[in-house]
């Protein structure tokens, strides 16, 4: 009940819930994927599931960059940073993600120079302030963070800063959606499209999902009402037999995206032929690599990278959960060996990971906020 007062327009939330019930055909089961981890977090936090009829099912998608990073990349990054006079800089989200021999935070406890930065620009600042050390920024994220890394690399090149490089793990959302649609064990009816990724890429890149795959996409904001309205918009399309891309989050997302951000990405990055995703395996052209013209600032082109491939702990079923084939609580380790305090898999680390969200909001059984608002 705590958050009910803070809820914007609780009466509209109740109305949206009713509209969803009205639109959903009782003889049909709807599987709607929310692609973005931020949406997954919000859905759990607000207990939105409780407002949906049982035949409208939300499937959590792959849009949590920490969660989809295979362990081998963390091991690779940490092994590079084990060189003398290296500083390993990364966002706080990365610090507790387990590698084979521990998380960056555990490496720090063993003596590695590990720093949290909140911006890639600050990793550059670290390099300026530590000219006798090499600062490696361990970059992760979808198109929300990739343009900032690109601009930072452009600045490093302009300054001619030699003691800075980026270990690039940036991924792109569209090929992951394609991989999920191609997956034989996955049947989906539509997508709640990512909000902030779309401020960069715009809405056009989703066109093929509607035109070629016949599935509606609604780019959505993050408030409870935004998400419910998006589900209403999806169900309206499905009811009419339509499939198009709609933008529920017009107040923030321009249809064409952010061209300056896309230009910065094009200047610095090119597509990797393939990249491994945790749970989804190798997906072609799904990640960004630093162009040869920036080789000096690319940790992978500048240093020798082991190129480790590590399988996840056997009992952990992160892959199946990531694909939406298993629910978080169906994993054998969930809530026992693997908890937010002692994560085994990455989905338990980030607040946007579906396991952490499920653990925090379902496993611990708080009062449903949305359910209370609807009543």
């Amino acid at each position, binding site marked *: 009940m705590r958050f009910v007062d803070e809820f914007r327009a609780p009466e509209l939330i109740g109305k949206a819930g009713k509209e969803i019930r009205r639109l959903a055909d009782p003889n049909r089961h709807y599987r709607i994927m929310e692609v973005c981890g931020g949406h997954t977090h919000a859905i759990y936090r607000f207990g939105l599931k409780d407002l949906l009829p049982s035949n409208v099912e939300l499937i959590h998608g792959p849009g949590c960059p920490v969660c989809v990073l295979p362990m081998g990349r963390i091991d690779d990054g940490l092994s590079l940073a084990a060189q003398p006079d290296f500083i390993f800089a990364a966002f706080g*989200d990365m610090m507790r993600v387990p590698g084979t021999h521990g998380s960056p935070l555990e490496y720090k406890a063993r003596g590695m120079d590990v720093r949290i930065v909140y911006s890639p620009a600050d990793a550059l600042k670290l390099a300026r302030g530590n000219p006798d050390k090499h600062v490696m920024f361990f970059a992760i994220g979808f198109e929300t963070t990739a343009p900032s890394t690109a601009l930072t690399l452009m600045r490093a090149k302009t300054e001619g800063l030699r003691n800075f490089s980026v270990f690039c793990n940036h991924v792109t959302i569209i090929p992951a959606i394609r991989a999920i649609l191609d997956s034989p064990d996955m049947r989906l009816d539509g997508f709640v499209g990512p909000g902030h990724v779309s401020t960069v890429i715009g809405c056009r890149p989703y066109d093929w999902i509607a035109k070629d795959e016949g599935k509606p996409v609604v780019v959505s904001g993050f408030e409870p009402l935004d998400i419910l309205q998006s589900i209403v918009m999806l169900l309206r399309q499905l009811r009419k037999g339509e499939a198009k891309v709609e933008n529920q989050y017009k107040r923030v997302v321009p249809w064409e995206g952010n061209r300056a951000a896309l230009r910065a990405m094009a200047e610095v990055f090119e597509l990797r032929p393939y990249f491994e995703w945790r749970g989804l395996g190798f997906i072609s052209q799904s990640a960004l690599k630093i162009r040869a013209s920036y080789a000096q600032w690319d940790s992978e082109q500048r240093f020798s990278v082991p190129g480790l491939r590590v399988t996840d702990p056997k009992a952990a079923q992160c892959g199946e959960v990531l694909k939406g084939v298993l629910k978080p609580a169906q994993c054998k380790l969930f809530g026992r060996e693997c908890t937010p305090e002692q994560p085994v898999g990455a989905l338990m680390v980030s607040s946007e990971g579906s396991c952490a969200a499920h653990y925090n909001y379902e496993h611990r059984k708080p009062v449903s906020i949305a359910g209370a608002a609807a009543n």
Partner: protein
Amino acid sequence: MCLAIPGKIVKIVSENAHLAVVDVVGVRRKVDLGLLRDEPPVSGDWVLIHVGFAMSKISEADAIDQMQTLKMLGEAEAAMEEVRGYGLENEGQDGLAYGWKE
């Protein structure tokens, strides 16, 4: 990292370097405006910030909504921790930024 943090531009520091001072609920830090160079914001404009870079211009009402969303998501504190950390402003002696909690 995935948080979009709303802030108001209070001062353009350098047109060339695309830097501006932004106010986020009373905390002022420099952010990079380089990704908005097509429509450079001016003092008084509201922006959404990701990892120290302004990513989109928004209205004041949407900025208030976004802060409210962060509060509802329980992420307001993490957002403020991120903003305080911009510019390595609060880096402690052990090299970890202020606000890191085990």
